[in-house]
Structure formats: structure tokens, C-alpha cells
């Protein structure tokens, strides 16, 4: 045997910390259109190379190129652009509300809007989503009223969730949006269960779920992969690799030497890695995976490679752990700009229309926020009635909760 030297414990460091220069130059970014697009009926064994690629559609000149370029109408693209812009305007406004004390907490998805928005458009409206806290774009794209979302953020009298949930932990059965859990990754195996139920019922609907790079380390995600494989569940497993989990970079989640899409290989599952800031690419891979699931061909793992451009949440200050300029230097750009430029390149959009839309959305969000605030905000104590605190623990209130409610005198 070879001789053994002491090695110490390896603890992976990120490429740069505050005060250092962000080092995205080492990032290999393949040109748009360079990755092949297999048929959905492909044997997963024949695409074991794909998890190491990066599927991109929009090229430097804002054109959609290559085999993954989806056949989509300008209308659909404009819907996507609008939903992304609305999502961002909504986020900005809610951040402001948090700063004003109208709510205690907020989570933006800045820079990651294409993930939820393009995926919502690629799925059918009645497919079931099991998201994390950073896919508010799903609700917005599905046309769910931002007024309703705001009322929850403000925990006011119109909050359907009766002030029980943190802001951003939305739930909308009607919109096919599962109640978000504070406990990371639990939704992934639940999505598989929902998909198994749909298969059991011969229901053409499929499930989709989202998990962060950080949260993918949880056992639940492993269970999701395993159960999805075993039962060939009609589910799309989305792993949003925005490269940060609060303060820890993706290497701490196991991404130092490989991609997250590659996790799929060991389960004989297709693993696709996509430029998460490329609306068209995200749309295309999602449609591919959804079609596969719907055709009974089983689950797909999609790694959406993106960058968390903002703080983790309003409780977080990223300048403490990563270079302040990192977001600005992120080479895959901004998903909204990129789609806008594409539409302009197509002759289907213009700076003027963009400005007008921006204004319209900002106004609409401001007006809606005003209305939402009129139903109360957290700091104004316009909470749902205290009695409701004891409801919905069980379908019927057992004696001990009834007595506790009496004890509180409500």
C-alpha cells in the first residue's frame, strides 16, 4: 500500500468571499443551442452526458437557437415577460412594505423569475405544484390575484390563511399550488405521492416540485428520487441551483465537483441542466419533462442553474458572506432583460412598450398594495379574529381545544 500522509479535513470554500473579486470567469458557459434535444421516449441511459451540459436557447444576439428552441408564440413570450415583470414589481413592493414594518419578513426571487414563470407556462394550468418559498412566480403566472397574496403577507382580515403562516408561505388549492412548508424539502416526496395518486387514478395531470440546491441535501429529496423512480411517477423534480443557501455556497450542498442534475443518473432518471435565466430554455426543458411525465415515461430531474441576486430574505445581509458585486458579475444575466431583448429582436416588443408595461405594472402593484393595506397590515394589528387560532387543528375541535379557547375567553 502507498504511504499515507495526513490530510486534514476538507471544507470546501467558495470562489470568493467579501473583499475578494468574484470569480465567475472559471465558469464554463457553453454557447446557446449546443446541447442536443432527445426524444422524450429516450432511454435515460443514453443521455447520461446531459446533466453535465447547460441547455441554453438564447444566443448573444438574442435569438432562439438550437434543438431546444421551443415553438412558442410571441403572445406566450409576452405573457411570460409580463409575469416576470409583475413578479419583480410585486417583490419590490413587498420588500418595501417589510422595510416599512407592514410585515415582518419577505423573500424575493430576484434574478430567478424565469424559473417559476417559464415553468408555469410550460405546465398545464391544472398540473399540481409543490413549490418552495421562492416560486411566487407560479401563482402570478397562473393569474392568481396578487391582492390575495398581499393580504397574506400583511396577515390582514382578508388573509385566507388567517394569519397563521409566515408571509410568502402561500397556499392555493384552486391555483394548484400546494401549501408551502417552512421545513425544507418535505414537499419533494409529497409531490411524488401526489403524482403517484394521479397515476393511480389515471388522471392526466402531473405534479411538479421545486427544491433549492441547499435543501436538496435533505433525506426527503433522496426519498423523492427513489420513490419517483420505483413507481415511475409522473412528476417533474426541479432543483433550483441559485448557488447559495443562505450563507453557504453550493459546494457545501455537494456541488463542488459535479452538477446537481447528475444526481438523476444514479436513479436511471433523465437529468437536464438548464440555464435558469434563459426563459426559452427553461420553458423547453420543462415542457419536455412534463410531456414525458404525462406520457407515462416517468420522472425527470431538472437543475435550473441560476443565481440568487438578492439577499436570502429580509433577515439576511449577503454582503457578510459573498462579494457585494457578485450579482452584478453573474454572467448569465437577468432573465427579464434577456427575454425582453429576444422579443425586441423578434420585432415583437419595444423599449417603449416595455416602459409602458413597467409603469402599468408598478402602478397596478401600488394600487393593489394600497387596497391590501386597507384590510390591515401586521403592524396595525388587523389580524384575523383570535377565535380562529383554535380552528383547523382538527376537522372538528376536540374538547381540550374548546376548553383552551374558553380559557382565552374568545
Amino acid at each position, binding site marked *: 500500500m502507498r504511504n499515507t500522509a495526513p490530510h486534514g479535513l476538507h471544507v470546501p470554500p467558495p470562489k470568493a468571499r467579501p473583499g475578494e473579486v468574484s470569480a465567475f470567469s472559471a465558469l464554463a458557459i457553453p454557447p446557446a443551442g449546443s446541447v442536443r434535444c432527445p426524444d422524450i421516449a429516450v432511454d435515460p441511459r443514453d443521455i447520461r452526458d446531459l446533466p453535465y451540459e447547460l441547455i441554453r436557447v438564447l444566443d448573444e444576439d438574442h435569438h432562439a437557437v438550437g434543438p431546444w428552441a421551443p415553438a412558442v408564440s410571441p403572445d406566450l413570450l409576452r405573457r411570460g415577460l409580463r409575469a416576470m415583470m409583475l413578479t419583480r414589481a410585486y417583490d419590490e413592493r413587498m420588500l418595501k412594505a417589510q422595510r416599512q414594518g407592514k410585515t415582518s419578513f419577505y423573500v424575493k426571487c430576484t434574478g430567478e423569475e424565469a424559473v417559476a414563470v417559464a415553468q408555469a407556462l410550460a405546465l398545464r394550468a391544472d398540473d399540481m405544484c409543490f413549490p418552495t418559498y421562492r416560486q411566487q412566480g407560479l401563482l402570478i403566472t397562473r393569474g392568481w390575484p396578487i391582492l390575495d397574496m398581499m393580504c397574506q403577507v400583511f396577515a390582514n382580515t382578508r388573509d*385566507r390563511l388567517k394569519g397563521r403562516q409566515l408571509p410568502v408561505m402561500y397556499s392555493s388549492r384552486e391555483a394548484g399550488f400546494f401549501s408551502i412548508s417552512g421545513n425544507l424539502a418535505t414537499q419533494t416526496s*409529497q409531490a411524488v*405521492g401526489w403524482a403517484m395518486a394521479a397515476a393511480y387514478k389515471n388522471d392526466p395531470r402531473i405534479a411538479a416540485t421545486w427544491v433549492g440546491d441547499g435543501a436538496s441535501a435533505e433525506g426527503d429529496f433522496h426519498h423523492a428520487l427513489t420513490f419517483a423512480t420505483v413507481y415511475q411517477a409522473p412528476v417533474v423534480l426541479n432543483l433550483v441551483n441559485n448557488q447559495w443557501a443562505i450563507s453557504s455556497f453550493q459546494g457545501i450542498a455537494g456541488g463542488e465537483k459535479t452538477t446537481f442534475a447528475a444526481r438523476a443518473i444514479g436513479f436511471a432518471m433523465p437529468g437536464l441542466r438548464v440555464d435558469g435565466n434563459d426563459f426559452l430554455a427553461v420553458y423547453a426543458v420543462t415542457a419536455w419533462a412534463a410531456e414525458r411525465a404525462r406520457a407515462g415515461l416517468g420522472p425527470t430531474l431538472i437543475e435550473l442553474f441560476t443565481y440568487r441576486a438578492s439577499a436570502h430574505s429580509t433577515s439576511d445581509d449577503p454582503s457578510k458572506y459573498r462579494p457585494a458585486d457578485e450579482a452584478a458579475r453573474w454572467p448569465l444575466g437577468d432573465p427579464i432583460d434577456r427575454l425582453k431583448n429576444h422579443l425586441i429582436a423578434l420585432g415583437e416588443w419595444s423599449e417603449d412598450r416595455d416602459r409602458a408595461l413597467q409603469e402599468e405594472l408598478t402602478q397596478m402593484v401600488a394600487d393593489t398594495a394600497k387596497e391590501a393595506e386597507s384590510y390591515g397590515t401586521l403592524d396595525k394589528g388587523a389580524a384575523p379574529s383570535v377565535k380562529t387560532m383554535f380552528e383547523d387543528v382538527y376537522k372538528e375541535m376536540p374538547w381540550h381545544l374548546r376548553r383552551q379557547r374558553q380559557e382565552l375567553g374568545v
Partner: protein
Amino acid sequence: MPAMNMIQAVNSAMDTMLARNPDIVIFGEDVGYFGGVFRATEGLQRKYGLERTFDTPIAEAGILGVAVGMGAYGLRPVVEIQFADYIYPALDQLVSEAARLRYRSAGEFISPLTVRVPCGGGIFGGQTHSQSPEGIFTHVCGLKTVIPSNPYDAKGLLISAIEDDDPVLFFEPKRLYNGPFDGHPERPATIWANHPRGEVPEDYYAIPLGKAAIVRPGRDVTVLAYGTMVHVAEAAAAETGIDAEILDLRTLLPLDIDAVVASVSKTGRCVIVHEATRTSGFGAELAALVQEHCFYHLEAPIQRVTGWDTPYPYSLEWHYFPGPGRVGDALRKVMEA
């Protein structure tokens, strides 16, 4: 009426419900083709097909996560955790998800799950095949916890659990599967066929959750027990000649507080018996409630007879098990006070 042992009764409950409701599916480790390591699901896959009773990967959290998703879809999953000792990996899905889903979604999504959990010792299973963790689940709001003590109740309560729209932990005392165990391992085993509650209708019937049963009326002292310990308490009453009123709680949460209070108010004395470790076991909650509700009726300190606060030791399990001797001592002690 056919005589059934407790496994057959549990099997019959699932059989009855699979036939009645196509939304019920059953899964867990080894429950499919083989019919479960305790054979509780025997024959169900053959009768209802591969999709309705199937094997799962060995991942208790995965089983529960999938069940929560199915429940959100609209199915009514009935899952088996092979041994209570293996429920801990699934705790997060139970506590943070199944138990909380109705509340956090304000009723938009529910978790109408039934989790069957063989529990308890007395089978030389050592520390990881003998535990009684029911106390933990009674601390988790949003869950219901049920433990039957005989085949008739097992079927009726399991049917109620399956029909319940909230998640129910259904603990099955393994030591009772084949017969009503009185706590004396040296005595010849008796079988359910000779017990009145071993007669179990083939057809549908339900026993409501939240209702205790008085298995032995008495005047001197109230014994609160459930599962295996009901039979141990009966043996202790018989052996000591003390006129104990024995309540089989059947459902721990929601508890039948009225039955408890009525009995202790009458007897003025209370012994609580469970197999789980003592500290912070469900007996603690029972003691707290009894003294809260019956303080002025109590003539002696409430006694707890429980498993020791140690792991369940393999070869010394009869020294660990709270048998009729220890229960009898407690009965005498409260009577002397």
C-alpha cells in the same frame, strides 16, 4: 360471528375499507406480495391488485411524505411502519406536514392518513423492536392517537381511523396480536377465540374515536390503561382482589376526559399504567389532567406504573415489562394511602 385474532381483525378492517372505497391505498415495507411481517395485509394485494396494496422502499420518511402527497390529492392512504421503533425517521413528515397541513392551509389541504404502527414489547425484540412511543405523538397537535386492546375494537377503531379526515396514529400492541396477554409470560398463552372481544363481525362497523371503554367496573380505584396494559390491569385486579375500575382509553388523543373524570371522581384513587418509559410518557399527561379535574376527590397520590426510563432490554424484558405484580403493588399502595 367469526373469531379473529387481532391481526385478522386489522386485516379485516382494511379488507372492508378497500372494498368500500377505491380511494384507499395501502403501502409500506413488505406489506404487498408478502402481506407484512406480521401478516396484517395478507391477501389484500391478491384481492385488490398491485396498485392498492404495495411494497415500498425502506424509507419511513419517504412513505409518509408520499402519503401526505396522496392525501392532498384526495386519496386515503393507510400505511404501515414496520415497527414503532422505526417511526422516528418519519417524524418530520408526521409532525411538520401531516399534522400541520390542515391548519397552515386553513383547510385547503388535509392529511386523511392512517399510520399503522405495531408497538410494544414482550416478544424478545430488544430495544429496537419493543418501543411504545405513543406519548410523543400525543404532544403533537393535529394528530390523533389510537391504541386498541382487542380484536373487536381493533377493527372498529381502525375503520374509524381510516374514515377520519385527520391523520391518525394507530398503534397495534404486538403482544396482543395472537391473544389477550395478562402479563405473565410463564402462563400458557390464551387465544382470542376464547375472549368475548375476539368475536369480530366480517362486515363494516365503526367504533368512534375518543371514547374509552370500562372493561371492569369497580368502586375502589380507577386504573387508566390502554393496549396490552388493559389485560395486565385486569390480571392485577383479579390477583389483588381490589375492586378496580379499569378504563381502556382506546383513543389517547382526543382523550375521553369525561369517562376519566367520572371514574376517578367516584373512586377517588387512580393508577395509570403504560408500557412506555415513564418520564414525559402519556401517563404524565393523564396524571396532570386527573389532578386538574379531580383534585378534591383524590384520596391518594396518583401512581404511575410504566416501563423504566431505560431502553427495552433484550434478555431482561420481563424485568422491564410492567407486569401484574407491579400493577398490583400500585393498587395496594393507593388503597393504603
